[in-house]
């Protein structure tokens, strides 16, 4: 049974992705679960697994093409099955690179060069095609219709949006993202010029976008970690290695609980509205060789600590090995960045849009503290929250931090 594989949705905010590399060509056998392509999203480059087995019958998008979520990319079918790619995907088998597509039979309704006009001079288009064109600022007359009587239908607008040359005069394509401002540096013979990796260029773009658009506020709080460290020791003694909790797991759990209490921090700024996310999914920033990835814990507020720990470990490992799975990086609603292992006492982090905040966590340190007029040894952790001031205010962020502090200082809260 032929299966049209669409551009997957890899996060709640993902609208489109770019087909970076086809790992299977037309005619290749594919097993269920095998990697068939690399997809680049706003957040990362991920490997796409086949969810059915069979043979690749055709690709309908080229490498390097941005594809809206849900739009067809390729067709997988039984080896002997004859498949009409055009009928299934509404698109001619394409994929000019790297291997030319097998000579496809001419599609029965070849796209007309321009939309057919009814005898009245009206352009025939289905209501949904009209709406899509209107929303994208397209002139229907420029879109070839493949429906009955040359009617412009949904697939035609989709194809046009994907293939339209950026300079097409009438096609007011969505405004290009502002490129990070670059102040050119002089390059001398001793200098090395390293092309940006995909991940690096994504990070560059997104970090610049965040600092340029988000009016962020920064608040720091100090937490007494003595009880949390003691509890962690006790709990871990009872758990197998794969379920042992790290300090960061404790922080992530505390953040998850606090987010449920402060929905404005578990939100996104939507221009004229605020989107408060129903799920609390705390992302964990992970340093990887080519940059930075965020792996995501799901329903962090309700998930038991040991389970959280057991889930984070393999995700972090996959991220470091470059084998991240789509599910690992999708759906984050708030991020925790921890540089404690590098003995960093305290730092600030940049908000990862469209999230409303990020918590930068330093190292747990033994420090002298004053208690009842005496200097005694204490265990302290500093954390700094950066928050989007369009979404929340200082006092609310302060209370949010207090809530995290309370959970960590009375750590039984993390277990119940």
């Amino acid at each position, binding site marked *: *049974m*032929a299966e049209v594989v669409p551009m997957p949705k890899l996060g709640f905010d993902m609208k489109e992705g770019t087909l970076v590399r086809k790992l299977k060509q037309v005619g290749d056998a594919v097993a269920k679960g095998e990697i068939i392509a690399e997809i680049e999203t706003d957040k990362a480059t991920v490997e796409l697994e086949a969810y059915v087995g069979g043979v690749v019958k055709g690709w309908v998008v080229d490498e390097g093409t941005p594809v809206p979520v849900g739009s067809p990319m390729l067709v997988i*079918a039984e080896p002997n099955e004859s498949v009409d790619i055009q*009928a*299934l995907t509404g698109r001619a088998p394409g994929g000019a690179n790297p291997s030319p597509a097998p000579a496809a039979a001419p599609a029965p309704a070849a796209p007309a060069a321009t939309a057919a006009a009814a005898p009245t001079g009206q352009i025939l288009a*289905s*209501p949904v095609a009209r709406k899509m064109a209107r929303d994208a600022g397209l002139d229907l007359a420029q879109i070839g219709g493949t429906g009955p009587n040359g009617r412009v*239908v949904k697939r035609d607008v989709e194809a046009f949006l994907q293939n339209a040359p950026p300079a097409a005069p009438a096609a007011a394509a969505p405004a290009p993202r502002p490129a990070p401002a670059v102040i050119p540096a002089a390059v001398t013979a001793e200098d090395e010029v390293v092309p940006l990796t995909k991940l690096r260029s994504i990070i560059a773009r997104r970090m610049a976008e965040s600092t340029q658009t988000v009016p962020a506020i920064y608040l720091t709080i100090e937490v007494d970690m003595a009880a949390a460290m003691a509890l962690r020791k006790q709990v871990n003694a009872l758990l197998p290695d794969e379920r042992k909790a790290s300090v960061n797991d404790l922080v992530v759990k505390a953040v998850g609980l606090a987010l449920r209490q402060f929905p404005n921090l578990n939100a996104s700024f939507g221009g004229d509205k605020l989107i408060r996310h129903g799920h609390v999914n705390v992302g964990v920033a992970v340093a990887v060789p080519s940059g930075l990835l965020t792996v995501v814990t799901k329903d962090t507020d309700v998930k038991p600590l040991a389970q959280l720990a057991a889930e984070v470990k393999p995700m972090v490992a996959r991220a470091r090995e470059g084998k991240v799975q789509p599910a690992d990086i999708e759906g984050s609603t708030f991020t925790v960045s921890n540089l404690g292992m590098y003995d960093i006492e305290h730092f600030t982090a940049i908000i990862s849009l469209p999230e409303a905040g990020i918590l930068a966590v330093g190292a747990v340190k033994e420090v002298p503290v004053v208690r009842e007029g005496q200097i005694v040894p204490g265990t302290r952790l500093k954390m700094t929250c950066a928050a989007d001031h369009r979404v929340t205010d200082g006092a609310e962020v302060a209370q949010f931090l207090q809530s995290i502090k309370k959970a960590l200082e009375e750590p039984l809260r993390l277990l119940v």
Partner: protein
Amino acid sequence: MAVLTIAKSIAQAIAEEMERDPSVVVLGEEVAAAGGTYGATSGLLDRFGEARVKDTPISEGIIVGAAVGAAMNGLRPVAEIMGINFAFLAMDMIVNHAAKVHSMFGGQFRCPLVVRTTSGGGRQLGATHSQTVEHLFAHFPGLKVVCPSTPADAKGLLKAAIRTDDPVMFVEQATMYSLRGEVPDDKDFLIPIGKSDVKRRGRHVTVVAYSNMVEISLKAATELAKDGIECEVIDLRSLRPLDLDPVFESFKQTNRAVVVEESWPTYGVGAEVATRLYEECFDYVDAPIQRVAQKEVPLPYAANLERAALPQVADVVRAVKAVL
């Protein structure tokens, strides 16, 4: 869960409700001693006795008339009209009385009545015994009209119909009584009236059907899937209240729809569903909505003529391809 035919699941639903509620009574032609012309009331007389399971004269007007009066005065009758073609003889009682005694008297009276009947063609019974006309009853506010497509739905919906305080036309399909399926044993297994049900998921075309047309649509969907075309098949289950939310939701993904009904298309269920789609989802329409229905003729006797007039799997396949 037991595997039962629709006829058996109906008999089980009635028996369970009679057991649960002593005010539930059964009346109709041949329902008691003979156990129903389709066996759907089989065994009830022995179990519940003559006072609660009553054969009637062949008098459709008084079958429903007495049932409405009794319903107003404290009973919960399940009246059987042997065929929906004969329900025309009780049409006044159903639409002028059952549907109206609650509202017309300002809510004083209730009419917890179920009229069970059998609809549909395909058995070479000629023009007057083969009509599919449940949608006529669904025209009337005040009535509920339920049309199950599986044994489990038949049981859950009939039990809900018997328990509701409103009058329900419960329309079974003559060619479906022997259809088998798993039926929950739970004595409180209820399916709420007025909820459509997605019987198959798919993302290319939304196929809307009810009663035996669900089976035909599912067969068409299986066939189409061989060509990579995935149909979402939605079973309306009740024609009034009509729950189109799942249809709208599906259509917003597929942008294409086919409505399958056994009756004639003019003024029919397909007309209603298509209009509501155009009203509610205009900006999602990518192709004209297709109707698959009976040819606009009184149904003939000869088997080949009857087949040619009734909607077949191939008609659904053709209609789905036409909207793609």
